[in-house]
Each structure stands twice: as C-alpha cells, then as structure tokens.
C-alpha cells in the first residue's frame, strides 16, 4: 500500500505543516485533527530543532517553545502514532532537520517511524550530495524520502534529484526561509513543468502559501498545495482558527 500515491491519485491534496508541540502538545494534536477533519490530506509533522536555519520567524519561535516544553523526536513519533490510529488514510510525513535523526540513529528512527505508521521523511538539510546515508535505511523500512527542488535548482540537477525517488516532489516556491509572502512568484508553473518532464511523481508546491488566493494560485499549477507558517500561526490562536485556516485554503483550491 502506498498511501501517498493513493492520496495524490484521488485529488490535489492539501498538505499542512505543523510544528509538533506548539503551542502545546495537546492543542497541537487538536489542531491537526481539526485540519484533517476539514479535509487536509497530508500532515507534515515538524520535529522542533534548536537551530532551524531553513525556517522563518514563525516556525523558529514555535520550535523554541516546543523544545522548552520538552518536545523531542520520540514524542513526535508517539504523536504521529496517535494521529495514525485516529486517521488511517491521512498521509504522514516527518519533517526534520538531520541532527535529531542522526542523534537517534537513522536505522532506529526509521524503524520507529514505520511502526508509528509514518509514510515519509522530508529532510530539510539533506541535499542530493548527502542523501544516500538516509535513503538506504528509509527504503528498507518502506519510507519515502521527499526530494526538494528550489527555484534556483538547474534542470540537470533536477534530473538527478528526482531520479528513482518516490512519494512526491516538494517544490520550494521562493528562495529563502519558510514564512508567508505577500505574493507568490509568477513562474512557479514553469518550474513545475520542468520537474514534471523528468518524473512521473506528483509535485507539490510550498513556502509562502497562507491565503485562499495563494492556495488557488498554487493549485492551478501544482499537484498539491503545502502550507506551514500560516497554519502554525493559526494553531497559536485556537483549534477553531486552525480549522478555519484549513477551510480557507481548501476553498481557495476549489474544494
């Protein structure tokens, strides 16, 4: 069974990132479940890291709060297992910097993730050059590694990045860190078209999407829409805000 493939085959998924443990572990869980009940298809479970160098201020601050309250990889995996038991069809992706995974041990991490029912790992700071060290243990446990492509990635490199990969491709809409943007760049569609020349995998677009309009624009050109900082911000207000935020993005996507 490939849950991720089934989800993309059924519809253009809404993919929601959450910084696990923010604002608290239980409120985060409520917000994620509310998002799933509204229609979010895949959840990226962000492992809070002390040095989130790819993240903007919202997710960085959320990570610090979560760490201060004792969140760690083990608890993120237990969190994933609870979501899995309540939502068997939702895609679950572990979104992490490499250090917490290395610290726990790649093989051990992958064993625990597979047991918890997680589908994939999205390693933020693991480019093509270093990928093999995680690819092997992930595959042996049936986990996808989600490759990332940026607007600065040249085509010859895209070819090497997507080759023999599984799950979906994450297209980073803008060069820079995570966070809301006033407007998305106009050429996302062109970049995604280039990626799709070289892979049959679906391509989801993320970074800077926090409104119905942005979700609409992304859904026009991508196979899936990813939102992170906006959802994390909504989580900090209330479960209802998180649900409303999800509903707004789905509305933008025409769902």
């Amino acid at each position, binding site marked *: 069974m490939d849950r991720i493939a089934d989800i993309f085959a059924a519809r253009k998924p809404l993919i929601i990132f959450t910084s696990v443990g923010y604002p608290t572990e239980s409120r985060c869980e409520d917000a994620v479940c509310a998002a799933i009940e509204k229609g979010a298809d895949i959840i990226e479970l962000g492992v809070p890291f002390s040095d989130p160098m*790819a993240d903007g201020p919202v997710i960085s601050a959320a990570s610090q709060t979560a760490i201060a309250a004792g969140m760690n990889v083990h608890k993120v995996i237990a969190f994933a297992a609870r979501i899995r038991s309540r939502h068997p069809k939702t895609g679950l992706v572990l979104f992490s910097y490499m*250090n917490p995974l290395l610290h726990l041990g790649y093989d051990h991490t992958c064993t625990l993730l597979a047991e918890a029912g997680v589908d994939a790992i999205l390693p933020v700071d693991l*480019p*093509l050059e270093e990928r093999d060290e995680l690819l092997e243990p992930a595959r042996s446990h049936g986990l996808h590694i989600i490759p990332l492509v*940026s607007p600065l990635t040249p085509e010859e490199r895209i070819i090497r990045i997507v080759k023999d990969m599984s799950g979906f491709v994450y297209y980073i809409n803008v060069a820079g860190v995570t966070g809301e943007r006033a407007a998305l760049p106009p050429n996302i569609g062109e970049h995604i078209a280039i990626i799709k020349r070289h892979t049959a995998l679906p391509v989801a677009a993320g970074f800077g999407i926090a409104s119905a309009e942005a979700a609409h624009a992304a859904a026009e050109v991508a196979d899936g829409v990813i939102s992170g900082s906006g959802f994390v911000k909504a989580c900090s207000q209330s479960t209802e805000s998180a649900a409303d935020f999800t509903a707004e993005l789905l509305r933008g996507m025409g769902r």
Partner: protein
Amino acid sequence: MNMHYGIYGGQYVPETLTGALRELEQTYLEAKDDPAFHGELDDLLKHYVGRESPLYYAKRLSEHLGGSRIYLKREDLNHTGAHKVNNTLGQALLARRMGKKRVIAETGAGMHGVATATVAALFGMECEVFMGAVDVARQAPNVDRMHALGAHVRSITDGGATLKDAMNAALREWASCSDTTFYVIGTAAGPYPYPMLVKDFQSVIGKETRRQCLEMCGRLPDQVVACVGGGSNAIGMFAGFEDTPNVRRIGVEAGGMGIQTGQHAASINGGKVGILHGMKAYFLQDTDGQMRDTYSVSAGLDYPGVGPEHCLLADEGRAFYEVANDDEAVAAFDMLCRYEGIIPALESSHALAFAIREAPRHGHDHIIVVNLSGRGDKDMENIRQYKEKHGQNR
C-alpha cells in the same frame, strides 16, 4: 572534489543553497590555479595586512616558567588585530571575482566581523554582519569598529544569542539573496567548500611559522599550539606541519567553568557527532539531539561545533585537543601582559594557558610555538567584569 574529511564535513544545507556553494567551489578552484589571484592576495597580505607576522621568542615568559622556550606567532600584529583578515581578504577577492556587490558575515568576538567590514570597505562592497545580542553587549568596541567601517551590524536575539545563532541568521539571509550576496564564513567550518578554502587562506600562518622557526632555531618546533573554536587559526597553523609527525599539533578548546560543569565550549572533548551549519562534525548536544548553548569567557570560542578537519585529525590522533578553562585563560592573559608587554585576545589566551601548563615539564631545548591569533584590546571590559565577579580586582 572530495567534500568530506572521513565521515565529517559534507554539504548538509537546504537545496536552495546548493547552487551558491557550487558556484563558490568553481570560482575558488579556478582562482586557486590563477597566478594573478595569488599575486593580488600576496600583495595585499604584505602591504595591507603587514605580513609576514613575526615569530617572537618570549624570553622573559619562558625563563619565568623555567622549561620550554615559548615562541609566539604574532597574528595579533596583523591589520585588524587578528588572523581573521587572512581569510576575509581571500574571500573578498573571490566575491569580487564572482561579481557580488554585497558581503555578509557571522561573528562572535567581532574580530571576523571587523575583518569582513574592513575588506568590504577596501573593495567598495556593502557589508552586513550578524552578531548575537550577547556578543554585541560584551564586544562593544568591535561593534563600534564595524560601524566606523561602514558595515551594518544586525543583533540576533534567537537562542543563546551568540555565534551559533548569528550563523543561523546569516545562512537564512544568504538563502534569500545568494545571487547578489557573498557569505564570508569566518572559520574553517560550515558546508564544503568553506572548510577547504578557509584552511587554504589561513595556511600562511603555518607556512611562515615553519620557515621562521627553521631560521631562528635551526630546527622545527616540538609543539605548535592554537586555540580552537571553529578552528581556523589552528588549522592554518597545523597546515604548515602536515608532513612532520614529530611536531605535535595541539588545539586548545574552551573549557569555560570546567568540562564537568557542562558550562563550556569544548566540542571535541565534550561533544558527539552531529549535523549543523552544513557540516557533520562534533557538536555539543543534549540528550534529544538539540544543540546546547555553550559558555566561554571568550566570545570567539563560544560555538558548539568545530571544523570537520579537526574532527578527523582528533579521531586519527594526528593532532591533539586539550582544554583550558576560563580561569586558566585569564591567568595566561595576565601573565603575557606582565612578562612580555603583549595584551593577547582571550581566545589566544587559551592556547597560551596550555603552553604555560606544559612548559615547566620540558627542558630549555624544547620549543613550543603558540599561535597568538589576536590582540586583546577588545577584551578589556570583559576581563574587568570577570575579575570583579571572581574577586580578583586589586
């Protein structure tokens, strides 16, 4: 090119930065083979920096200790007051070669920030320096110097608000503007190719030392000693003695209040393998794999990691990594001031502290070279506060 040092090093960065690193690698490899590049760099090192820096026999200090002869490699006499300028000049030449009009840098003690601001002024480039808020407060004179040189200093309040956090902020900035901006990394760490090129630019220290020692003493030193934060001055010194196994290469990490207290910055002696800032290396971490906030009286050593080549040298026993605590470094600072009339940087005082510990164990024919990587003018307020806190003021 091999991006790794054994299992260490590599290029653990978000995809967005990989293109900029490839561009830097290509530019550097071309420049490395270009005599014009070296001609310009050597000319600037001589006439602008004031190289070569002297190797100085610290006779009074050595006689006081009654053992080894201690020689000081006087990187503190360089323009800007530390070894950092050797590297920033090299990187600024690369930036110009790449057509970048703006440079950014991270800084801890502020010496690298000053050295970057200096070369930016020299080449007419815009400069922004990222500095932890704690360091902005404890290294105020360097903040003033950067401002005077026309640089903008961005104070970073994330995390422990020291060097690690400044580097996170600089990397974030770089991810959004690498097309126009060159990131000048100050130590032999970070993603490949930085550890390689920083080492190459700093290797002038070791090469000069080797020649000068042969001239002055008729033989090579028994030990070369350098402080290690990220490890740039040490790797530069060590580079001069790669094929001479009888020269013991010693790095000295910051022991802070003592390794056993957990309040230190000794990554090799107290850390484990991790991934941060684009490299696999030894890092100080907690039991969950979060990077720990470090502590040292010396802002320039206050970093939870260490360059990848040092990790490999340590594992293979080709260099040795010792620890000096705050109190030893401050005592060494005082001793050099009083016996030699030289005010050393608190960073360099860690290397000196080791030499002071070591010298009495040897005879007069034993030679220790200490890399005096920087001068201590910036540390006066820091030292005063330290002594006040520890009841050492007269």
